[in-house]
């Protein structure tokens, strides 16, 4: 970023340091011993939302979309990633039946790496694949209370991975649930899902145990099915009035089918798929202590572990996808003849020499440890949160990290303040410093102001400069296929130890208006963001004399710019009808993307993000025990890296539910969900992976 004589960074740091000092001084002052009127206006954490609106959207320093329980239910979503179709500027795609991608403002391959995803504040961004693995989260969609989505770079708050935005999934508090919840889903693609949730209270708090099992047979063309079983525990304990301890534990195991479902139409036989088994577990602890009514301390610690195991296919299986059906039929007539050939034996010896080789590269394990301490203090017009964190990531993989196990230790220090300059003007600032052991450091800053134009309307201006440290796999990914004599046969990926952080400059103008006569709001965001030193795969010749032998290496070769507008409108017309509408326009310009050192050169694909995305969700309750909802999704043309050029699509989902009360506390609910109700078959990532009409039937019993 350009150096300025007195940069915005220096200004923000100076203000934050001053604020810290002020807070320290004010904290030392003696406080009033009697109650005040402010005690009547204390924010109380929302348990059952009255308006379905977040309380402080107008004071937030960023554009926030809250997907609440009512929206989750009405959407008819079967999987968590489907919910982000209801967030302006976000794109969700099925890479295949059980593998999903969620990105903000496009520019991604099948592993979207510029979005932080958290569950109750625990990052599920997996450094092994530089993305969250949505199919191993150990989270059932009905365990979610709400999802807070921050649209726009939020690195200064959530660290490197929140480069383009952040998602925080907040699970339901165990105390706020029925004692027993049973649900079952049956439907298209032989989908079978069962979920049991049990909550109980003991002397010191409440806890919940969730058990789930899911399976499907995948798409008709590829049979890319999957199966998973997972369980989770959530406990919330309050040993004293000042202390709250929350514990989350989870385990998720199963398999999905992966593969690059991409080929010319005349070579569809060459599409290669493999089963990928996984198991994942996590342990997460959070302790909150109110030191006073103005000061709170938060300590969080978590560990998470994921192991991916791609099926180790035989040479016959690998060759099967490389030859045409007629050649394969011929081979089957004389199998021994082929196996005794010199080239077959050479390939077999290569596989024997390189046992870590997996064609799709999704094999290995990763463990993350994270510890964070934060102090929140509120004094008059000033609210400040400061803290520090330590993160340790480990990675192990024969195909991704051939040179051996890799690890990374990062420390981070952060501070955010909100200061009410005038009753109608709030200043927001944030800074975060991250340092990677033996690697680069990243600095992120944010400054913004919220000006209340009227009682119901707020104008927000924001600017941020952020950096994203490269993940484990981006820095260390390397693989060479060796001959039995130890010489290199083929180098496919070269490690990128000198990779620099990606950088983004982002500015926005936001406007939010809460309607006074009806519950609802309209949120408008104009944005401009410029990414430099973007990390992307670069093709290079391994040896000058053999230019056809290419290898990939991650380099800071990307530079692009996004600008556009996003809007969301939510309105509750009466007790029975509410709707949510979203629209985003994104104008993308890939200024620089020289991803080929061999001759391909620069290319500019404006289709790396869809120009238009829109969604609409309407919910109607004709009677207290009936609920009908419909959602419509539109996404314009887009090109996904590693995927295909995708045409615009329209999709309409419908959901109908009926509840029966059985006794005083039991309730039975039947739900019918039809996704893509008009059966306009379309594709989301690959040309031949169809999304056709899908129908599901759900039964729920709560006690």
């Amino acid at each position, binding site marked *: 970023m350009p150096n300025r004589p007195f940069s915005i960074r220096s200004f923000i740091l100076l203000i934050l340091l001053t604020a810290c000092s002020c807070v320290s001084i004010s904290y030392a002052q003696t406080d*009033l*011993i*009697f*109650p*005040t*009127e*402010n*005690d*009547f*206006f*204390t*924010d*109380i*954490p*929302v*348990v*059952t*939302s*009255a*308006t*379905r609106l977040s*309380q402080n959207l107008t004071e937030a320093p960023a554009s926030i979309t809250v997907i609440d329980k009512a929206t989750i239910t009405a959407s008819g979503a079967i999987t968590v990633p489907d919910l982000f179709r209801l967030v302006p500027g976000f794109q969700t795609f099925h890479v295949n039946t059980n593998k999903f991608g969620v990105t903000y403002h496009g520019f991604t391959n099948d592993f979207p790496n510029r979005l932080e995803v958290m569950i109750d504040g625990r990052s599920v961004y997996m450094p092994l694949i530089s993305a969250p693995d949505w199919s191993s989260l150990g989270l059932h969609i009905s365990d979610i209370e709400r999802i807070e989505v921050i649209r726009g770079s939020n690195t200064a708050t959530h660290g490197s991975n929140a480069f383009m935005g952040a998602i925080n999934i907040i699970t339901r*508090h165990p*105390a*706020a*649930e029925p004692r027993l919840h049973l649900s079952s889903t049956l439907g298209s693609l032989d989908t079978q899902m069962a979920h049991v949730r049990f*909550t109980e*209270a003991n*002397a*010191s*708090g*409440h806890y919940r145990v969730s058990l789930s099992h899911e399976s499907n047979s995948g798409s008709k063309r590829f049979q890319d099915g999957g199966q998973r079983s997972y369980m989770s525990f959530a406990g919330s*304990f*309050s*040993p*004293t*009035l*000042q202390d*709250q301890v929350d514990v989350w534990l989870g385990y998720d195991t199963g398999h999905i089918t992966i593969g690059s479902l991409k080929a010319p139409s005349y070579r569809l036989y060459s599409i290669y798929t493999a089963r990928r088994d996984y198991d994942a577990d996590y342990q997460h602890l959070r302790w909150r202590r*109110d030191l*006073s*009514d*103005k000061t709170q301390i938060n300590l969080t610690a978590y560990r998470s572990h994921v192991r991916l195991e791609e099926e180790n296919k035989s040479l016959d299986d690998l060759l099967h996808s490389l030859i045409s059906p007629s050649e394969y039929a011929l081979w089957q007539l004389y199998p021994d003849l082929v196996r005794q050939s010199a080239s077959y034996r050479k390939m077999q010896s290569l596989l024997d020499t390189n046992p870590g080789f997996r064609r799709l590269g999704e094999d290995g394990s990763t463990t993350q440890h994270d510890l964070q301490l934060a102090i929140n203090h509120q004094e*008059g*017009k000033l609210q400040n949160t400061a803290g520090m964190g330590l993160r340790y990531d480990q990675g192990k993989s024969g195909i991704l990290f051939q040179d051996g196990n890799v690890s990374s230790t990062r420390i981070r220090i952060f501070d955010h303040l909100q200061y*009410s300059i005038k*009753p*109608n003007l709030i200043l927001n600032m944030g800074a975060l410093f991250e340092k990677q052991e033996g690697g680069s450091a990243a600095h992120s800053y944010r400054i913004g102001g919220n000006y209340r134009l009227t009682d119901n309307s707020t104008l927000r201006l924001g600017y941020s400069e952020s950096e994203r440290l490269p993940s484990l796999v981006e820095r260390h990914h390397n693989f060479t296929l060796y001959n039995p004599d130890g010489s290199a046969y083929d180098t496919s990926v070269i490690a990128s130890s000198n990779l620099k952080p990606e950088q983004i400059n982002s500015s926005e103008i936001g406007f939010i208006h809460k309607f006074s006569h009806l519950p609802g709001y309209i949120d408008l965001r104009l944005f401009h963001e410029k990414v430099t030193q973007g990390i992307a795969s670069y093709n290079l010749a391994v040896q000058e004399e053999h230019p056809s032998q290419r290898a990939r290496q991650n380099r800071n070769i990307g530079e692009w710019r996004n600008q556009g507008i996003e809007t969301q409108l939510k309105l509750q017309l009466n*007790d029975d009808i509410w709707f949510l509408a979203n629209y985003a326009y994104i104008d993308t310009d890939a200024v620089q993307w020289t991803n080929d050192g061999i001759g391909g050169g620069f290319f500019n694909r404006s289709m790396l993000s869809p120009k238009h995305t829109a969604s609409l969700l309407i919910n109607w309750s004709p009677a*207290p025990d009936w609920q009908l909802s419909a959602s419509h999704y539109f996404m314009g043309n887009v090109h996904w890296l590693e995927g295909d050029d995708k045409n615009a699509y329209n999709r309409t989902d419908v959901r109908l539910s009926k509840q029966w*009360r059985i006794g005083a*506390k039991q309730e039975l609910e039947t739900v019918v969900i039809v996704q893509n109700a008009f059966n306009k078959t379309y594709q989301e990532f690959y040309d031949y992976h169809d999304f056709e009409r899908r129908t599901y039937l759900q039964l729920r019993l709560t006690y």
Partner: protein
Amino acid sequence: MNGYLTLKVSLKKLFMALCILLVLCLSIIKSYAAVSVVLSENTQTYLNVVSAMEQTSHHPVQVYSLSDQTQTLASSQLFIAIGARACQSVLTAIQSHQYLFCTFLPSQAYELILQTTQASLRLSQEHLSALFLDQPLERQVHLARLIKPEAQYLGTLLGPNSHHLTAHFDAYSRKHHFTPISARLFESDNPVQELTPIIEQSDVFLSLPDNALFNKSATRWSLYIALRNKVPLIGFSASYVDAGAVIGLYSTPTQIGRQTGEILDFFMEHRYLPPPSFPNYFSLSVNRSAARTLQITLPEVDEMLDALKAGK
């Protein structure tokens, strides 16, 4: 060089003189105001009280916030202190011939300020009065009866600032044909352990305001446990209803401002202050979502408001 220094010193003196003159002018201008309004904080909530007060009473007032209020207040006849901090601050500085009306503060805060501020002894009853922010306990118990006519047990949890209400809570509960259940919660107590048996036994749970720390923690657990046991909870603020209370009974800053304006008019006419009182204007808001979850059918809000006003 010396000439430069002399000029610099002269300019400094001139600047100081101008500042003093400006302060004196402001003091003179301010001293003409017979009524001074002092805000605890210069934030929108307090400004809303002032705005409603000015719409009700057309007597001119001079508005200060606690941070800029100085000795220039000395010549005001009546002080209207908005908020507990403003009340305490003005009370320590006020003379016996002046009047102080504290408004928009909890009744417990007012009692404690009187007990701990020697200056209050200088003022006669007619010179010192208040309008509280909290609702009279009987009004809250009455509401509990309105939302659940067949209920038998009324529960509440008392904290450090509300425990002295135990006897009143018991008495009003019996008056409205409830069997009262209550417990005292200390900071070292486990709130779940204390709350669970009370809420489990209660047909209606009444949440009483206390200090911010108590409100933050105890109210959150009250909401969770009440929801789990399907017991309707009565909250004391709009944010409580937003958070999940089935119904909330409270006075808004605008309602307090309106009544304060009426009291200002009363003072200007009669030249004495009425005795301390709870608000005459109050609101009810309902969380329909929570009501549906609890399967409770509430009377119309206007009906309940009329009944509460009739019973005041």
